């Protein structure tokens, strides 16, 4: 092929065709990706009950699914589940964020004998199915008297946050990219490690802090299995994910299917807003980790 400045009309046409094809391809894929989300949104406004429908678009539209979701608390108490999850998520978020940042900073910035062993142990622990220890956690919590009644909430907070320290890799990767010369300069100026951590590292690490807060806050909302094992049959302390899952069980699906869709929308909106608003931080945070 000749590399002249003049592009032949044939090549130009080919390029245009290629471009059109690629845009059509992207449009089709985007359609597939958005379709399920669109489907659940229109289902949440559907007037006809039940899970079996013969048309894609509802015949009648209504808000009653949302009304029922928040008022019919006799069988599946969604408002309570929502509050449970919200409270658990806030505490989990605070504890996990502190744990993750503490461990990540220690691993990234300090050198001590147990450092490598700890990192290896953290990696090995990540290889066990997280579910494997759940039964045992349940026993430990019951031995501590934390598996009954109102203590279930605390148990869930503990379960979601206690082991979070091993998930420090992303944050450590980010801390690694902050120049060490800053620390050294501060040390010369007489700053203690604690001051360096709180006054220099933390302010410079906004992306990863937002990322950590976000992921740990979302944990209880998206977790399903831990909540199910800890709550067992005690529906008073269900989190939203167990509640929504219940709505699709055989005995509930006919009367609760459209409410499930409404619940899914209600849960997704705050998380989607949080996520889209902080997407930049998410990418930046991950970027720090994979630069190595």
């Amino acid at each position, binding site marked *: 092929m000749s590399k002249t400045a003049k592009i032949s009309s044939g090549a130009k046409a080919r390029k245009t065709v290629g*471009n059109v094809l*690629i845009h059509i391809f*992207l449009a089709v*894929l*985007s359609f597939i*990706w*958005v379709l*399920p*989300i669109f*489907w*659940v949104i229109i289902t949440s406004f559907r007037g006809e009950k039940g*899970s*079996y*429908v013969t048309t894609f678009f509802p015949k009648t539209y209504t808000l009653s699914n949302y009304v029922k979701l928040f008022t019919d608390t006799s069988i599946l108490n969604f408002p309570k589940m929502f509050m449970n999850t919200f409270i658990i998520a806030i505490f989990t978020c605070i504890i996990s964020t502190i744990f993750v940042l*503490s*461990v990540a900073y*220690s691993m990234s910035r300090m050198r001590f*004998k147990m450092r490598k062993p*700890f990192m290896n142990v*953290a*990696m090995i622990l990540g*290889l*066990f*199915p997280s*579910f*494997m220890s*759940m*039964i*045992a*956690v349940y026993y*430990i919590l019951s031995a501590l008297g934390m598996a009954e009644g109102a203590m279930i909430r605390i148990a869930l907070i503990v379960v979601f*946050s*206690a*082991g979070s*320290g091993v998930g420090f890799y992303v944050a450590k990767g980010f801390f*690694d990219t902050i120049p*060490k010369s800053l620390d050294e300069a501060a040390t010369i100026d007489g700053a*203690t490690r*604690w001051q360096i*951590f709180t006054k220099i590292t933390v302010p410079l690490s906004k992306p990863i802090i937002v990322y950590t807060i976000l992921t740990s806050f979302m944990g209880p*909302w*998206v977790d*399903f*299995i831990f909540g199910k*094992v800890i709550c067992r049959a005690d529906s008073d302390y269900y989190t939203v994910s167990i509640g*929504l*899952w219940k709505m*699709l069980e055989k005995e509930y699906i006919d009367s609760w299917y459209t409410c499930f*869709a409404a619940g*899914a929308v209600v*849960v*997704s909106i705050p*998380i*989607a807003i949080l*996520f*889209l608003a902080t997407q930049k931080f998410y990418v930046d945070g*991950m970027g720090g980790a*994979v*630069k*190595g």
Partner: protein
Amino acid sequence: MKKAGKRKSEFVNPYTVTGAVTKGNAITKLSLLIMGLGNLVHKQIGKGLMFLLIEIGYIAFMIESGVYNLSMLPSLGWREQQKVWNDSKMVYEYTAGDQSSLILLYGVATVFITLMFIVVWREAVKSSYKSEVLASTGKHLNTFKEDIKSLFDQNLYKLLLAAPIMGVLVFTILPLIYNITMAFTNYSKVNDHLVLFDWVGLANFAKILNFGDSIGKQFYSVLGWTLIWAIFATVLNYFFGMILAIIINRKDTHWKGFWRFCFVLSIAVPQFVSLLIMRTMLSQTGIVNTLLLKYGIIDQALPFFTNATWARVTVIVINLWVGIPYTILQVTGILQNIPGELYEAAKIDGANAVQTFFKITLPYMLFVMTPYLITQFTGNINNFNVIFLLSGGNPTAVDATAGKTDLLVTWLYKLTVDKNYYNLGAVIGIMTFIVLAIVALVTYRNTASYKDEEGFM
């Protein structure tokens, strides 16, 4: 080995336990029995008292219940719950029997506490020896206040790591060890061993690994599917995600932000929600089948989750829907980091888009993202949510405990929660770990970013 030796010399501590035993004076030697004595003698009251309190607490615990817990560990209990006729009250009374699962838990916890106590004891001995040496050479001994202060400076890591490590020890490692010990017992519904059970050695492992046994057969088929699943899920997600990211980032693609938004939107919806939606849409009477039947495209409902092959393909494809947006997010930034000259040079040499991809983009991306891929692979082997919420492991043969799409981890769930075969569940967990450890440790240790951790500092 050489590396380990080097690491030790980096953090050498002259005040060792051996040193304390061989060279320490009477006080230091006495500190072997009475923790913190050396510190107390040298006016490190706070530190000394702390050690002493820990020792008193440990001894009290051992007398109170620790010794009993350990003594019960070999037998795991034998007393059955019994009905006893109480003559004076004229009723049957139940005497509490042993509960092996609790005996095992308390026993493991006691061993655990003892190990932690030994760690503290070693620290106490070293500390006593150190204060003796420092005092005899006339050097400065840290006061309690200075010790506290150092926690915010050179010993900051101790302060920062204390709570997270406690959390991991109590709620991750201890449960894990407890669960692992179950693999060596007959704790299961079989022969009614849910209350009282015994040690059985490696019998469960033999059962699972035995081709002839029905459980063994299921194990190999589940293991095979788990590996196939993990490979397909990881590779396809990565490959298609990267291609999509490249297409979106092409110079000639319009509305880049819009396309990216469409894909990323699906991440913003919680995964269990989108998975449950997918499941209802694809079910036998779901909207997809209904519409296809209605317009006469198919004659009977497509068996998305009822036919083994269909179900396997379906979960992999839906996992693409879930995973590709993540890959796009991850890959976009790194793609832009690829040096532009490489592409210029390839263009001058007359390479087309496909050649550029396989000769430049892919090798570069693989080089940078191997750790990410390994994490993805291990994550997929343990991908509980996608399988459990989509197919539930189904379809399942009538006489089997594992379905055709069950991964090791969902099978583990079924064995423990639904079937109460705790011992077999534990074995499956250990097997999962072994598979992952082999895959991950070998590759991890050979990746650039693990070796050159300090490289980019």
